[in-house]
């Protein structure tokens, strides 16, 4: 045992701060810290703006393609069954990549820069940080979805009104589609955050998240084995499709029921984060 001893001077630290009873971590404080982190980065604003822009533009494109559908005799009857809200939410898939990247970057950005050590030095219990990040991400995703849906609603209105498809705001079907969109986007964002916390690397996390969220359903659809089709139906994008329709036309095929969709999407959101929370405490920062 090597001991370094010295007479400690009797002066106390001249603190110009309130006592420790007032200055200590609280969940509200950690939340505020996460908020400042997010809003003080330009990349956040880019991700949010591009999400809203992409969703709105794709919705507009979907609405404009309605005229092409009416010209095509095989597709024309489909318009009768369509719900305007489905057209408006048509851009949702395309908002997923940016939201997923934002979710992953929320934590991998800290590992990449080393900021995570400052973060965990301030909040050594760590779990509140993940909780605050998740909550911040939910709020942010909700806000950007709301903005995107509003924008999409208004830009598609001229086209939709031609076909009498402007969704009525007192129609439960409209809110079902918008609610399902919001639910699925939030689930995708949280899934990415969980993956990011587990993998820590931005490249690896974004790759995994986007593969699971977007790439796999398309690639696996070329395989027509029964069990592969079953797996595909449980992947986030197909699993969420029941939530993105009014329920009238959307339950055909290998799609899950609404209830199963809600549960599967919740699992995508919760399971990676829960596993990450357990390991977060044990792993070296």
């Amino acid at each position, binding site marked *: 045992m090597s001991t370094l001893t010295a007479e400690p001077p009797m002066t106390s630290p001249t603190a110009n701060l309130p006592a420790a009873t007032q200055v*200590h971590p609280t969940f509200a404080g950690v939340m505020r810290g*996460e908020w*400042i982190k997010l809003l003080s*980065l*330009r990349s956040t604003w880019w991700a949010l703006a591009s999400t809203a822009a992409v969703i709105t533009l794709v919705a507009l494109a979907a609405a404009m393609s309605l005229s092409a559908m009416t010209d095509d005799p095989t597709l024309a009857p489909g318009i009768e069954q369509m719900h305007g809200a489905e057209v408006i939410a048509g851009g949702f898939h395309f908002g997923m990549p940016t939201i997923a990247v934002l979710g992953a970057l929320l934590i991998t950005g800290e590992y990449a820069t080393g900021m995570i050590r400052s973060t965990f030095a301030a909040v*050594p219990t760590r779990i509140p940080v993940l909780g605050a990040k998740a909550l911040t991400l939910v709020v942010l995703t909700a806000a950007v979805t709301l903005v995107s849906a509003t924008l999409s609603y208004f830009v598609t209105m001229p086209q939709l009104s031609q076909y009498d498809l402007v969704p009525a705001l007192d129609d439960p079907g409209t809110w079902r589609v918008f609610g399902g969109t919001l639910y699925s986007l939030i689930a995708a964002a949280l899934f990415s955050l969980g993956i990011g916390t587990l993998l820590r690397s931005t490249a690896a996390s974004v790759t995994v998240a986007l593969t699971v969220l977007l790439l796999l359903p398309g690639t696996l659809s070329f395989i027509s084995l029964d069990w592969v089709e079953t797996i595909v139906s449980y992947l986030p994008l197909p699993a969420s499709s029941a939530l993105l329709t009014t329920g009238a036309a959307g339950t055909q095929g290998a799609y899950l029921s609404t209830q199963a969709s809600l549960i599967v999407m919740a699992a995508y959101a919760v399971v990676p984060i829960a596993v990450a929370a357990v390991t977060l405490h044990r792993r070296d920062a």
Partner: protein
Amino acid sequence: MIEAHELTKRYGGKTAVHTLSFTIAPGTVTGFLGPNGAGKSTTMRLIMGLDRPTSGTVTVNGKPYGQHRSPLREVGALLDAKAVHPGRSARSHLRTMAATHNIKTSRVSEVIEMTGLAGAASKRVGGFSLGMSQRLGIAAALLGDPRTLILDEPVNGLDPEGVQWVRQLVRDLAAEGRTVFLSSHLMSEMSQTADQLLVIGRGRIIAAGSVQQVIDSVAGGAVRVRSPHAGELAAALATDGVTITSPEAGMLEVSGTTAEHVGEVAFHHGLLLCELSPRRASLEEAYMNLTQDAVEYRSEPTTARSAPAQKGQNR
């Protein structure tokens, strides 16, 4: 107060820190000295609870860091000046940390002023020089007005004015009764800044104590004598445990005895002395000797390592 007990950390098969036990007392500046890869940063991360020890314990002010109610009030740490998101401004970076502890924004402005960052506080950190980043890191460490400060290579990259400032700052903080623990491999810097030293090599403590104790424990003391009767004096001094070399005619380097004893012997033999000076080893020499041992302990016969070893033997 930092207390480590049998602290060990292994990363895979590599032992970074091996059964470290030490106490860092409040009211002092304690220097943590060691070559690159000796385990300084690992030890600091273990203190901060960022890495979990493989075995052993370390506490700050009586508790493991993570169990304090107000961590930033207990310990302020600068572990890596570049560990800041480059896209964020210095002020935003400090505000994110302050927010977690409900520390007021006025305190953020205060530490920005204290560290001389006022002109750059709203600039993005990505464009900061290493010296500026160090100042930001120190600002972050001071944010909670902590009782204990842990600074990993704080003067690295600072200009002379900045070095002077850090030196004065840590002295002032220690004088206020705080515990200051800072690492460096700038030995000359340590001799001017630190009261106490903890020397680490290959993950083990190889020396500890006050700066002078560490130097003495390693280099002993040599006495330089100049005399027209050098040959006679050498003969008179030659007893067990005394080694005498003659770097030039009329000059002797005597080790293993004191200047008083040399003077006495000269007086008894009636020999004239022109110079009699105890020669203190510098911290730098002590450090080289100490870490040379640490390198030898590792017993890896590589050509790169043999160079400092020879240097050490020449002393």
